């Protein structure tokens, strides 16, 4: 492909990649996207010189005045867009940019037009970077990088007359390779792609090394938070059901390698509710308490009513990347002990829910250390439990319920001897006697729990959990409802749970005086996700890529830079220690060997020492003998010769020795040229080499001029090649 066509094509692909970024960021209205895409496609077809479209740009012969009018029109549209339609600078600017791109594509005639196109493309890719953090930006960016390298390279190399190339320059240049067509050939193709790869590598390196300084003078947050339900102070029964079909991503929860055995399911606690009025749950007290942080930015969470001493599991570490939600709740495995993240503060309520001070409009990354309360064996068998007055007052509250609920509770727990057995009886009853279904309309029901327990006998997590809480309270066991997420979608590629809206869940926490709040989930498993197809595996793989992209690039911060520097320093220290240990070990080994040798020498005679030294000298001599030719060549060519004969004479002598080794001896009476003829006659393969060396020899020895270092190097190489030749037919 000729340079000029490749240049046009790469320029258009550059614009296409930038425009693709805007389209994928959903920043361009469909009519404008369709218009620009059409013009772009026609331009690409024209650049490829497909017959019908080849004349497309040339046919656009609109006077310059009309273009100016169009540009002014586009600018007026931008003003109207800014004032009335979009009302925001960024979208209005993007629309204006897209219009400019379309207009410029129609007027690509001169080099200056291409420069304008590059500038518009750069602004477009910048705008799409401002609008997204999604992983689709990666292929767009890579395509942009590749086309940028191609375009800039061809822009420089292409001397095609685009209407504005200066005549003086072209006439003043003399092409040394007139016969070389200016076309894309294999070596140029690979060179350009190699440059692109090099640029990519450098880009990544520079990206990680650039100091992250955030001034934020005109910083503007953007993006719509994900609407979720079930985590406000008051939750109507049935609200979670509305989002149980929504596959939108809520968060990713990464577990350390050592804790990935918990990959079957993970309860992520959000908010707990203590009061139920028959149709909705609410938290008794809206008061929140600010938690203090240490110097390292670690917030200690001390939930009221939780007992963590002596009856807790091993620490469970979680790294959570929370999508922007319309709630300030931070989710974690119960019970959170510490929270670490880049936020100014953390608040907790008196039932252990954790909140940010504000609703975040951006993704939130935080780490949590949790310790799950474990039920003490003594409380499993205890005949009765003494609950504190405050717990009883708060967590035994019941709304106006049908007496059927209490009757059912007593009936279910009739055979249970201990409180724990009663709890388990209710739990089992709910698990076994009811059918899980999302197709339940509870908004119009006046008594949704009674309907669930006695009429429909179908429901979902809220119904199960509420029913369990109420049934336990009717038999005097304190319990509360907890909403959160039940993570079951384990991503084996990234080693984390993917949590979606549909994973929203409600379960029960039951109070034990010594063990604290213990989690019970009366909702039966739905069987979702039992079958996983290859498509799902691919989806999980892409999901893990997204997480890596987000973690490595989008969330990369000054803290990561410090961690990287720290890691490099630690690696360096470790390597240094390893080398030091190895040296110490080696020195000890050498010392012991020397000691042994010295002992032997002392023990026997000096003869061994002499033998050893003799062998060393012999070995050195052998090595010198083997490489003597190379040493000689090096000395002849590289060292300033103080001998009478110049270096070429020494090389010529060396050539004669090589030939002698092959049985071709130079008679003393033969001149160098006569000897060349003799060699060509009796050893044809060596003829050209000997001829060339002899020519250099004659020129250097008798021509009165010193040969250049390049010529001497060439002669040296030819002697080496001569040595490798083997004479046949001797």
């Amino acid at each position, binding site marked *: 492909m000729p340079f000029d066509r490749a240049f046009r094509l790469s320029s258009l692909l550059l614009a296409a990649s930038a425009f693709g970024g805007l389209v994928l960021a959903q920043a361009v209205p469909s009519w404008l996207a369709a218009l620009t895409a059409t013009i772009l496609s026609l331009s690409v077809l024209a650049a490829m010189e497909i017959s019908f479209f080849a004349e497309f740009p040339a046919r656009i012969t609109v006077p310059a005045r009309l273009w100016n009018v169009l540009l002014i029109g586009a600018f007026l549209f931008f003003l109207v867009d800014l004032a009335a339609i979009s009302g925001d600078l960024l979208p209005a600017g993007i629309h204006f940019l897209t219009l400019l791109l379309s207009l410029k594509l129609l007027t690509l005639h001169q080099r200056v037009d291409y*420069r304008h196109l590059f*500038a518009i493309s*750069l602004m477009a*890719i*910048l705008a799409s*970077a*401002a609008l*997204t*953090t999604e992983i689709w*930006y990666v292929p767009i*960016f890579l395509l*942009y*990088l590749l086309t*940028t*390298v191609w375009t*800039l*390279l061809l*822009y*420089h*190399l292409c001397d095609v007359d685009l209407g504005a190339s200066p005549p003086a320059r072209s006439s*003043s*240049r*003399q*092409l*040394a*390779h007139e016969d*070389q067509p*200016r076309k894309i050939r294999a*070596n140029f193709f690979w*060179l350009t792609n190699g*440059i692109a790869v*090099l*640029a*990519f*590598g*450098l*880009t*990544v*390196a*520079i*990206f990680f090394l*650039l100091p*992250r*300084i*955030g*001034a*934020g*003078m*005109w*910083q503007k947050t953007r993006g719509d938070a994900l609407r979720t339900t079930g985590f406000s102070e008051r939750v109507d029964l049935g609200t979670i059901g509305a989002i149980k079909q929504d596959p939108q991503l809520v968060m990713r929860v990464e577990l350390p390698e050592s804790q990935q055995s918990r990959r079957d399911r993970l309860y992520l606690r959000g908010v707990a509710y203590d009061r139920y009025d028959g149709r909705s749950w609410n938290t008794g007290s809206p008061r929140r308490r600010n938690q203090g942080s240490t110097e390292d930015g670690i917030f200690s969470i001390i939930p009221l009513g939780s007992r963590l001493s002596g009856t807790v599991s091993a620490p469970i570490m979680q790294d959570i990347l929370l999508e922007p939600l319309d709630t300030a709740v931070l989710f974690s495995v119960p019970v959170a002990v510490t929270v670490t993240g880049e936020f100014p503060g953390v608040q907790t309520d008196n039932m252990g829910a954790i909140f940010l001070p504000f609703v975040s409009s951006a993704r939130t990354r935080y780490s949590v250390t949790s310790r799950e309360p474990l039920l003490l064996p003594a409380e499993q068998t205890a005949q009765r439990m003494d609950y504190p007055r405050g717990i009883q007052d708060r967590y035994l509250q019941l709304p106006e319920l049908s007496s059927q609920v209490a009757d059912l509770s007593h009936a279910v727990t009739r055979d249970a001897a201990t409180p724990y057995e009663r709890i388990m009886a209710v739990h089992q009853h709910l698990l076994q006697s009811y059918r899980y279904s999302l197709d339940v309309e509870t908004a119009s029901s006046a008594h949704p729990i009674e309907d669930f327990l006695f009429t429909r006998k179908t429901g979902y997590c809220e119904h199960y959990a509420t029913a369990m809480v109420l049934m336990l309270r009717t038999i005097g066991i304190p319990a509360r409802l907890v909403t959160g997420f039940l993570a079951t979608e384990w991503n084996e590629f990234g080693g984390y749970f993917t949590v979606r809206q549909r994973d929203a869940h409600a379960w029960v926490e039951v109070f034990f005086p010594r063990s604290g709040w213990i989690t019970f989930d009366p909702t039966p498993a739905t069987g979702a996700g039992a079958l996983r197809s290859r498509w799902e595996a691919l989806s999980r793989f892409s999901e893990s890529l997204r997480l890596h992209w987000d973690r490595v*690039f*989008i*969330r*990369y911060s000054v803290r990561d830079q410090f961690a990287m520097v720290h890691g490099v320093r630690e690696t360096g220290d470790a390597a240094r220690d390893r080398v030091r240990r190895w040296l110490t070990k080696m020195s000890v080994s050498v010392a012991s060997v020397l000691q042994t040798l010295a002992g032997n020498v002392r023990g026997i005679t000096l003869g061994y020492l002499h033998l050893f030294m003799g062998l060393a000298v012999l070995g050195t001599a052998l090595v010198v003998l083997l490489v003597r030719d190379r040493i000689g060549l090096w000395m002849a060519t590289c060292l300033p010769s103080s001998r009478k004969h110049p270096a070429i004479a020494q090389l010529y002598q060396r050539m004669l020795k090589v030939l002698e080794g092959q049985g071709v001896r130079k008679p003393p009476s033969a001149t160098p040229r006569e000897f060349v003829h003799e060699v060509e006659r009796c050893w044809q393969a060596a003829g050209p080499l000997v001829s060339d060396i002899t020519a250099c020899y004659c020129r250097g020895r008798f021509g009165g001029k010193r040969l250049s270092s*390049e010529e001497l190097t060439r002669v040296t190489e030819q002697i080496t090649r001569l040595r490798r030749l083997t004479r046949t037919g001797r």
Partner: protein
Amino acid sequence: MKTLGDFAHVLRTRVLTFVTRRSIRLTSEGVRFLLFTIGIGIAAINTGNNLFYLLLALMLSLVVVSGLLSEQCVRKLTFHRHVPDLIMANDPAMVSLSVTNRNRWFHGYSLRLFDVGGGQDLDRGLFIPYLEARRSVLLSYPLLATKRGRITLEHLRAETLFPFGLFLKRALYPAETTVLVGPPIKPLSLRFVEDLLSQGQGHPLPRRGHGTQLYNLRLYRPGDDSRSIHWMTTARTAQLIVRETEIEDQRRVTVVLSLLAPDHLDDLFERTVTFTASLLWQLSQRQYPLRLIVGADDSGMGVGSDHLLHMMKALAICRRRSPNGKDSRASRARWGDLGHHESGYIVALCPWSNGGPQEHPFVADRLLEGTQLEELTRAF
């Protein structure tokens, strides 16, 4: 022995060479590129958006790649400049330049080459779009000198805009070459030359050659034409004697150029040198044995192109001397050695004289002085 001034000059040249060995300049495209880069950098710092940092890194990496590749393009180049022994002023001469890329792997692209003389880049229009690794290319270009003398081309500068045209990378390579520029050859008045030749007929110099008149008898040597044996003498002396003949045309001319001229006659002196060169060329075309005496430099009598070249070289480097200068006496020294027997017809060219008898210690057959020379060289 080098003086302190020479040492300082060498030192200055070395320092300048070292300082200017490599340089890099921004092109207009590069300025725009850097402005965009700065803009993106400000946006990245302001927003903390890592994708802006990614774009910034891309722009910076292209800058780094530009630097690396342009350096590879202009390094490890070897130049050999081949110039004629003598070129004539105002007459374009071809100079060939062999460029070798000694890079093992990297090809050279978009290389522009400049002669560097007197600290200035001289654009010869040399451009190599592509030079493979470990390959050479031979370029040639016309060299036009406007003045006689020596032209020293000290260095060669290679520059490239490769790969992106953002930066102009330049590298200076030592490639000192001295070109000798002779005076221009101008057409002379045919009447003047014919007149000169007719006057010179009376100054023959017997020389061996093809002719009919006896020049010499000598012993026969192997290879001599047997037809030239002089049998009578051979019979008389009982030895083989051959007969040598004398060449028919025996005219010879000695041109004497006086270097003495005051400053205000510098232009006339240069024109006189041009006249001398033109005259010698005209006479040489007619196979005249010629001798040139320029100041203290005597070419001796001779014929042929080599002899003409020798004389032209003498004219290329001769320098005007002030009549009051200390070396004015030395420039007259050899004039006293002139003798008619060897010199033939003597033409003396004196752009300046004060009219005194001591000015010309020889008898010139034809003396051309200021006014005459002014008249003859007016058209130059």
